[in-house]
């Protein structure tokens, strides 16, 4: 009990869970950064991408062996990502864009509506029974001394790190990333730089949705694919985004990983009953809103008139 190995085990679990939260939280925070709006359909976009990825994987996997099943897995993930990206852009165009000049409540309600429509649509088309996504590899734990790590965990960590580094590079260094930052700082002035703000918003939705689909497909191996798979995970990722400082990219990454660690260690070390695990996130949310409403990395912002 309480050994180093056990601690490392929890750390690994917490980091993988947190990485997943972070990937999803990025979508919330990027959209908020530009539109000051919470896309409550984000979790359902994740679910749709996971379904598509699952179908593609089942179709192409066939009798493939070893290395090739892994290739097929990532290829399916890519298709799921693309699908979610296009879906995210379409939802923005149809359900949010026409409401951009309406009251701030209007797009929020629209998002909740879209969320229900997507999950009901999925239940109607594909049934409510969860569908299993087969591991593309033997997932028995690898033992390194006292520590056991599953290949699934390693894959999650690798994918999360690659995605985060790529996103950070894109935002900080690329031409479009600069345009995204400019748009989030001042839309009017961005337009006067010749930046097509509508296009930047569409790209933001596409990237956020693709990241969510990645997260969904990765956890589907463990939790399976079902119509409401994105709901709780999505909500918790939203909490992570708020904890890190909504609108702040690094904040979403930090908030996500922190939340994963707190949930895991809360159950393992503090003895919080497993059944109450899901409440941890929301208690943290309330504490953050009371103590540091702008989030850990967020800056206290003066309300613009």
């Amino acid at each position: 009990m309480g050994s180093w190995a056990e601690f490392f085990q929890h750390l690994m679990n917490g980091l993988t869970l947190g990485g997943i939260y972070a990937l999803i939280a990025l979508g919330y925070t990027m959209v908020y950064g530009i539109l000051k709006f919470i896309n409550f359909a984000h979790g359902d976009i994740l679910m749709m991408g996971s379904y598509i990825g699952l179908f593609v994987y089942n179709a192409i996997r066939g009798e493939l062996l070893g290395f090739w099943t892994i290739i097929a897995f990532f290829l399916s993930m890519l298709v799921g990502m693309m699908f979610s990206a296009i879906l995210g852009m379409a939802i923005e165009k149809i359900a949010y864009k026409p409401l951009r000049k309406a009251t701030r409540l209007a797009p929020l309600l629209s998002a909740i509506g879209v969320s229900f429509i997507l999950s009901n649509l999925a239940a109607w088309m594909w049934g409510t029974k969860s569908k299993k996504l087969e591991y593309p590899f033997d997932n028995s734990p690898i033992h390194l001394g006292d520590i056991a790590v599953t290949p699934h965990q390693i894959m999650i960590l690798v994918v999360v790190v690659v995605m985060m580094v790529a996103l950070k590079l894109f935002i900080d260094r690329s031409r479009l990333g600069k345009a995204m930052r400019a748009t989030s700082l001042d839309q009017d002035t961005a337009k006067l730089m010749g930046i097509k703000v509508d296009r930047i918003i569409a790209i933001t939705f596409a990237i956020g949705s693709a990241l969510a689909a990645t997260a969904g497909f990765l956890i589907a191996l463990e939790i399976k694919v079902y119509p409401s798979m994105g709901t709780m995970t999505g909500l918790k990722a939203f909490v992570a985004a708020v904890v890190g400082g909504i609108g702040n990219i690094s904040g979403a990454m930090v908030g996500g990983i922190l939340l994963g660690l707190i949930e895991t260690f809360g159950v393992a070390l503090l003895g919080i009953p497993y059944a109450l695990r899901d409440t941890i996130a929301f208690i943290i949310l309330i504490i953050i809103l009371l103590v540091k409403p702008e989030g850990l990395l967020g800056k206290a912002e003066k309300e613009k008139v």
Partner: protein
Amino acid sequence: MTLLETQKLTRAYGGVVAVSEVDFEVEQGLITGLIGPNGAGKTTLFNNITGLDVPTSGTVQFKGKNITGKNAHTICRMGIARTFQNIRLFKELTVLENVMLGRHFKVGRSASTGRLATALKSFFSMEEEESIMREHALKWLSFFHLEHLVDELAKNLPYGHQRELEIARALATEPSLLFLDEPAAGMNPQETDALMKTIRKIRSLGITVVLIEHDMKLVMNICDTITVLNYGQNIAQGTPSQIKRNPLVVEAYLGKEDA
């Protein structure tokens, strides 16, 4: 040659008419001043020409094309740039990034690629796009002798430099027409003198300049032609000496004697 022309341009907010049937002409190659008391509608006129606001009625013609009500980004791409009275830099970005953004649309617009493809292309040709934008941005920064501040955040610059940076950023879009909204506001006399030289230098690059300004010394010194707005209406236009002698203008600024 007329570069820009508004005809009966009107912008009303509910019952308040901020700009009323204004005919405003900008001659290519000249420096045009736009003056008038506070609330005369000068900035509203700028906003309606540059696409930040949509006129209630009337038209705006630029290079012979009707640009009334077009998107701000479209108008920018056609060659109109502007600065703001209350400097609107991207404060959290660096000096260099601010000016590079002015080059945004000049890069990577070759093919008619879709959104996803554009994003991917921008990711994989990051270095190349960045170096093209940087090179150009540096050219404009050196125009204002700001090269040494490239990595500073815009918000950390002293006021005068912020004004210059905003002009540099506008110039980076390679406009043929540049609108300056009170560029000398808050400047001391030395800074204002330097600004006058800069504006002349900008004109010598073949860029037509329109400026809103309250500093009469600057306006009378630098402008080839002046338009006066009062209560949203164009009440006079002419050379600085004509404007100085115009009784309507004197009245607008000083009030009627019996008032």
